[in-house]
């Protein structure tokens, strides 16, 4: 269980550790003042709208307790929608509504929520129940993503999203995390979720690891993991690459979901993306970062950057 390697071997494998991520990647590429752009989902939405970055459409924002009273009327002819805290994280406070049952709202599990309960949820959100440090927040209402079924059978519960790491706007690595029974439907690798590296060149799965060990099939569904291919791959990468242009964050994680009709949609951005992606890819990130570093000074737009990365990292 507890095997240790040497720093020399990790360096040889090109692995980036936490300290290097913090000292070199984040501190030198992500100016602090840009953080609010990604830590506040409402701001992310505002900067991504109208520049060709597809996001789940915004239906409304609840900013004051006064608005909460008008919610019933506002939501009356909506079928599916999602309410989320603007400054939430880790899935906290996200309420997904997939349909209506008379006056009540139906959750994906099939259970119902009354308008009163929904209003209570929103007003708790406003007072900061779900946001970092308990700060007052706003609640966003956005359209329900109709998940495409490419991930059908690849995950035990829920729909996985695709995480792409961008360095100076170049996609350098991608993965998706598949929940398992063991991970209790959660997508955390250290809790037993499966990490699936995705080939930057093709969108096909590269290799899959669970608890750091390579696996072939999903432990619960039995699906052969090498069969996964993310559709609209180049579109998806172009979408993520544009996020660099609007945020200016040099080391950026982008979470993408696939909508049945709309294709790839940006769900959220992260200025401190983790390092587990290296484990899922079975590969250190450093050689790729160095390559991008060597491209400094060459002006490329998002499409050109993606083309370069697909070529270089194939």
């Amino acid at each position: 269980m507890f095997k240790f390697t040497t720093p020399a071997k990790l360096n040889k494998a090109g692995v980036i550790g936490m300290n290097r991520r913090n000292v070199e990647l984040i501190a030198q590429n992500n100016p602090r003042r840009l953080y609010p752009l990604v830590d506040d989902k409402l701001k992310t939405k505002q900067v991504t709208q109208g520049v060709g970055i597809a996001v789940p459409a915004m239906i409304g924002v609840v900013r004051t307790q006064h608005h909460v009273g008008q919610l019933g009327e506002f939501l009356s002819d909506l079928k599916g929608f999602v309410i989320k805290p603007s400054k939430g994280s880790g899935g906290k406070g996200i309420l997904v509504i997939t349909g209506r049952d008379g006056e009540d709202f139906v959750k994906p599990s099939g259970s119902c929520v009354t308008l009163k309960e929904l209003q209570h949820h929103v007003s708790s959100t406003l007072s900061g129940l779900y946001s970092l440090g308990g700060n007052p927040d706003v609640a966003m209402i956005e359209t329900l993503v109709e998940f495409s079924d490419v991930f059908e059978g690849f995950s035990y519960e829920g729909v996985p999203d695709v995480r792409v790491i961008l360095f100076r706007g170049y996609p350098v690595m991608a993965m998706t995390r598949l929940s398992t029974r063991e991970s209790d439907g959660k997508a955390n690798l250290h809790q037993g979720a499966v990490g699936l590296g995705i080939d930057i060149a093709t969108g096909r799965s590269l290799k899959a690891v669970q608890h750091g060990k390579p696996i072939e099939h999903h432990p619960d569904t039995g699906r052969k993991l090498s069969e996964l291919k993310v559709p609209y791959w180049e579109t998806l990468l172009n979408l993520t690459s544009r996020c660099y242009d609007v945020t200016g964050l040099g080391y950026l994680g982008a979470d993408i979901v696939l909508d049945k009709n709309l294709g790839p949609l940006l769900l959220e951005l992260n200025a401190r993306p983790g390092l587990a992606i290296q484990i899922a890819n079975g590969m250190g990130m450093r050689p790729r970062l160095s390559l991008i570093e060597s491209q400094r000074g060459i002006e490329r737009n998002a499409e050109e950057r993606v083309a370069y990365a697909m070529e270089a990292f194939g």
Partner: protein
Amino acid sequence: MKARPQIYIMVSLLLFIGLGLTIYKCYVLGFMFTPGTETVWQVQARMQFEAEGGPAKVILTMNAPDKSIRPVFREKFFEDYECVFVNEDGVRKAVWTRDDAQGMQVIYFRADFYRLSPPVEQVPPTDENPQDVLEGPQRLAGEDILLRASETATSELALAINVLGMMDEERNDPYVKVLLEEVEYRTEYMGQVSKVIAMEGIHSRVVRGLRLQGKYTQRSITTFIQVFAEGKWVLLDPKALVEIPFSEVLLWPENTRGLLDVYGGSNSSVTFSVSSVKNSAGQLAVDAAQLSESKLGDFSIYSLPIEDQNTFKLLLLIPVGALVVVVLRNLVGIRTSGTFMPILIALTFMQTTLLLGLLLFLVVVGVGLVMRYYLSHLNLLLVPRIASVLVFVIIIFAAIGIASHKLGWHSGHAVMFFPMIILSWTIERRSVLWEEEGPHEVLIQGGGSLFTASLAYLVMISPNLEHLVFNFPELLLVLLAIIIMIGSYSGFRLLELGRFEPMTRSDE
């Protein structure tokens, strides 16, 4: 990348100042690197005389200058007398003057000091052989005594001791009588001893000094003999006939006859009292530095009033705890819940001791988590939620306090030392963590926090470390340098060597 050179400059600067000051204080001001106590000798001279009614002047010859002596206190001023210190050909004197003195006068002069080891510089005699001055019958008597003394002596020192013993005890021996013929005072026989052993080529000298011994004693200046044997000076106790360490005697300059000169008075006398106390070496070094008016010595915890010292002591230990946290988080990779919460827990452990502290912590947090679990159904807002947890914590404190009292287990009261607000936040964070990430993560982070706190505690209670930060607060700059260096360290953490280990396996 531009930050790098800046960091190097800053770190070198901090190291230079911090270590430089430390070394200076250590080698120049006599601060100690390790904790310990020193014996402080309080020597008081009581001078007494009958004044004649006019101006009076009292001159006390002081002890010989000695580099090993660190004065820490000196009583300088005396009622109606003005006091100055003068130096006449290397002999230090204290001079008291008064315009008109009438009747019995008593002057006290007190000096406190401690001794550094090694005490006295050894200056070997300059001549190859000592002056050999005995003549005639005295010479013959000396030869006989030497002959007898050498029967049982195996070394120069033993020979000298034998002669010394014979001349003091066998006063009726005819040869001794010859030698002591012209000696007025009983105590002056040592000069003759010196002459006798000089015939054997042994250097010696008669010195006067004050024996530093015991807790509190009245003493007068006594005479000792120093013998140069086997390449070093040895001080002999003429009565017990044994060697006395130099550190136990305060020597007066050679060739001083009277210690006290009084003008404008008669019937003068001086008596000494010697007492000793144990004192912390750190405190003494500061006192000594202050007496010699060194500014750097002031920059120490011990220069504060005693009451303030304790507060500051705790304060100075916190950075050390912070360093432990930084090392464990950034170099080892241990995760803790709440960055500096472990330091606060460690400070609590300092009041409760480690095992009791751990036990109480686990009980309070455990019970708190169970109570908090019921709260989570109520979907309370943040502040009221923490406030409720706080009330829980206080109820648990009270319950432990009362229960332990009823059971006669008084250590239970130590629970009061835990910071309640911090504990409430800890419980809140862990319960959120439990809901979001599961019990596994709570165990990892909770265990990490307690481990960090315990280690910080163990480091912070180490007496050596305590001594270092109290005496050399400038070491905080060194600490800062280390923290800055760790802050810019971009290598792997220890635990990452395990985390990323699978990536170095080959796939075959």
